[in-house]
């Protein structure tokens, strides 16, 4: 499902110093339906890796193959089309669109699907309502993000991530902005839905407890993979 070779990301520095290497020659293979956690301390390159795997950024060196598509060969709009069709996202800061209701936030990925895969309006509405009901917000569909708690917002985020029935889902510190109890509930929901739908799931986190729930943990430190396998 995902294959990276020699994935490297460097950022130039303004003060004439050599570029800052954030990711350094990462080789990674993720199989279809696999659930992996990328674990590492702050500054280890986790989010950079996630951005590159999802095609949100372009690497300085190396390659990423996502669901059979070579991201290098695609331009930004090509990568966007790939994301719309096959990728879902859960963000640490929820990233709901503040001017849209919970229901409309979940509708957006359905509206972004290519015409041949896009459901009709009624079907899209039904699917969005079903997902919101599935995450326990069936009675809050018309609420705006500002009217929801952090946990509720992340539930909407999860419903949105699954709306387009993605083949792969990226979650960036999905519980990072939540208290322990709410975080656990959100993680339960995420894993549960993932099991039901059979999506490949990549979770980026520094939370060992959350990482342990994934079948495989890729440990990252200073831009390099330092471990790959289940956590003890």
């Amino acid at each position, binding site marked *: 499902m995902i294959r990276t070779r020699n994935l490297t990301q460097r950022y130039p520095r303004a003060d004439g110093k050599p570029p800052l290497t954030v990711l350094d020659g990462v080789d990674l293979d993720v199989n279809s339906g696999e659930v992996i956690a990328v674990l590492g301390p702050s500054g280890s390159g986790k*989010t950079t890796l*996630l*951005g590159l795997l*999802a095609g*949100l*950024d372009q690497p300085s060196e190396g390659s990423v193959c996502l669901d059979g598509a070579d991201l290098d060969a695609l331009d*930004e*709009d090509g990568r*966007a*089309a*790939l*994301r*719309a*069709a096959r*990728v879902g*996202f859960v*963000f640490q*800061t929820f*990233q*709901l*669109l*503040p*001017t*849209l209701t919970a229901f*409309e936030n979940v*509708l*957006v*990925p359905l*509206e*972004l699907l290519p*015409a041949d895969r*896009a459901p009709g309006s009624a079907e899209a509405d039904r699917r969005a309502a079903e997902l919101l009901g599935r995450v326990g917000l069936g009675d809050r569909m018309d609420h*705006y*993000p*500002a009217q929801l708690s952090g946990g509720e917002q992340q539930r909407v985020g999860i419903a*949105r991530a699954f709306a*387009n029935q993605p083949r792969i889902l990226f979650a*960036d510190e999905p519980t990072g902005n939540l208290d322990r109890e709410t975080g656990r509930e959100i993680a339960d929901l995420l894993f549960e839905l993932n099991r039901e739908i059979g999506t490949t799931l990549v979770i980026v986190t520094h939370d060992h407890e959350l990482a342990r729930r994934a079948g495989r943990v890729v440990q990252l430190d200073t831009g390099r993979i330092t471990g790959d396998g289940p956590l003890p």
Partner: protein
Amino acid sequence: MNGRFIVAMARREARASGRRLALYGSCMALGIASLVGVHGLRTSVSDNVSAQAQRLLGADLRLTSRAPFEPEVEATVAGLTEAAGTASARITRFGSMALAEASGRTRLADINGIDGPYPLYGEIRTEPPGLYERLAGSEPVALVDSSLLIQLDATVGDHLLLGLGRFQVIGTITRAPGTFGLRTQMAPRVFIGGQHVEATGLIQPGSLVSYLLFLSAPEALLEPWIKTERSAIAAARVGVETVEEYQESLDQSFGVLTRYLGLVGLAALALGGIGVAAGVRVFVREKLDSVAVLRSLGAQSRDVLACYGLLALLLGGVAGCVGSGLGVGVQLLLPRLVAGLLPVQVQSGIDVASIVTGVGLGLWLATLFAAGPLLDLGRVPPLRALRRDFVAAPGPQRGRALLIFALGVSLLAASLWQAPSPLVGLSFAGGLAAVLTLLAGAAAAAAAGLRKLRLRGAPYWLRQGIANLFRPRNHTLATTLAIGFGLFLVSTLHAVQFNVRQQFAIDTGSDRPNLILFDVQPDQVAEVEGLLEERGALISDRAHLISARLAGVGGREAADWLLDETLDKNFRWALRREYRLTYSDVQRDSELIVAGSWWQPADGAREEPVPVSLEAGIAEALGVRVGDRVSWDIQGVRVESSVWSLREVDWGRFATNFFVTFPNGVLEEAPQSTVLVARLDDANARAELQRDLVGLFPNVSALDATVILNALDAMRREMNKAVRLMAALTLATGLVILIAAAATARTERRREGLLLRTMGASSQMVRRVMTTEAVALAALAVAVGTGLSIVAAWATVRFVFELPFDPPAIPLLALAAATLLVGSVLGAGGRADAHRRPLAALREAEQTGAA
């Protein structure tokens, strides 16, 4: 393109931000309203002129001459009327003093001696009705403009003395072809029967008389007749004016006024556009995160652009519709404000074409102004959804450059379309760009200067408030443009008007003449001067007037030149006109030699070619330079002259000015009259003098400076109403932008204020910070706007009106203070978030992306 996504997202954004976008759009609404209003007025006037042109002219064709028509012309005209089977009518028109017998008051009036069935189209309405036909009778009666009766303190039934004639006023004229509005105040009309003109004894050699001949004929006869006879008639120095030409001249003269008004409206529109761009820029900043999320979810950049492009169209639509709606109000109001200046009676009405134009213009310009900032949304990197501080490298600037180019071209095209001439349009667009650039430059310089200012010892609120002027997301540029430009326009208009009016005041000041006597015959000069001196009047100037025509120029006879139908309009006018020559060996103080030199008394006088001095403008119209030969027909005697000098004449002075001056010793024997210029301070004494002059010397006309000034003042007041309305719309546009900017600032500064509150700052402290920023911004804008307006007013007064500049300090300071107050109150009011509970507001700010 994903149409479903684009429309759905645009609809949702419009729901969430529609009111805000509508507020930005309304920044342009007042500018559009001005243009729609002015265009509506222009169209109404043009339509009415077009519909009434024949009645306004009173004929199909009008011939005008300064001398009785020559037999050849009379014969040609007779041929036409005979063939057409129609009648002709004539007016003998001249200026004369009218003396009201009962009140003893006098006034220079426009006397019209009517012969024949004038007007051939339309009618002359009188009060009481149906009196016009009585002019043709043997009884000497007159119909007058009601303004004359007021000025003479006379009533219907009183007698008027016109020269040697005594006429009973039988009624007033309520409608007649040709003259309108304030023009009757400048020279009120008196209509008498043509058969009584001779009895007035006012037509004498040298008198200024116009002979008008009105004709009607079917087009099939008239057109070929004009084609065949026009050049021969013109060669006889007779002006020919068809209905179409008359209509065109009316349209043109009124069009100039509306076009200047339109330019003020265009300035408001440009200012509004800047408001739109400034508002949308902030809107875009707030949308960056949302767009990054959309991009990470798979939205393509062109879909995002299309979605926000739709919103820009919505904004433009609001601007166009609200502006046109307000424009309808202006359309209804303007004709009432400038009624006195209109050549026709115009009913207030709604002009659909100008409304459609307004909506289109609003849609186009507002969309262009909004689209610039919106382009940034097409370049939002999806990675920003993960890293908020991630900023993409600047993308290609081609789209932005194209937009700026389209905006520039659109504004330039609008200026050229609106302006009375291409030069004015170009100057206006250039001036507008220069002022906006200077305002923007001043804002940037002030921000840079404040950044270097060390305020370490100052209280926190002062440092923080001042720092807000140069910190990121400041509103220094938007506010300086909004307040500064509005104030600039109003202050400049005021300062220019003040100086022009003051110049008039100087000219009628204690050392200036205020009375001019015309048509004093040679044998009357000594007696008239004696009377003036007896009444305490100080005679400051006397000049001899000799009527003449141009016989030839550039080695060719004037009549030959006039046969050429392709002749330049100004050249034709200069060839045809009747000249009032004077002679003197002394150069006048008010005149400046710009080429050649003044003659000495002995220089070539009495020998042809005689040296002459020409006014520079008429020399340009005739295409002559120093050393060229000009031939004159001085009442039948041909005189050859050589141009010795060109003079610049100050026509604005209440004094005698001449196009052509001869030396002494040439024209003394020609039939002539004298003009006397005098000063008599006491208004009552002046009125009595004029009354006695009319009694003793009926042919002498007196022009009182105060009468002219009053008439000019009335005209100026009428113009001012319209100009002030337009300036007010511009200032109001500035205020709308200010309100929009204040609302934006509130959103932007909200989190900062709330953080201060959270950290323990009192609501008073937060308010002080916000107020300091608002006052400092308003002060900067007021200082820059006023400063620039003084420079612009100085340049206009000095170089356009060629007058000395005197800044009206107190009104300008008052205007600046009022703007500062309003700007500060509006600005500070928009930032009032100080009393909200920090926690609730902080959460809201987080959610709306205002942080």
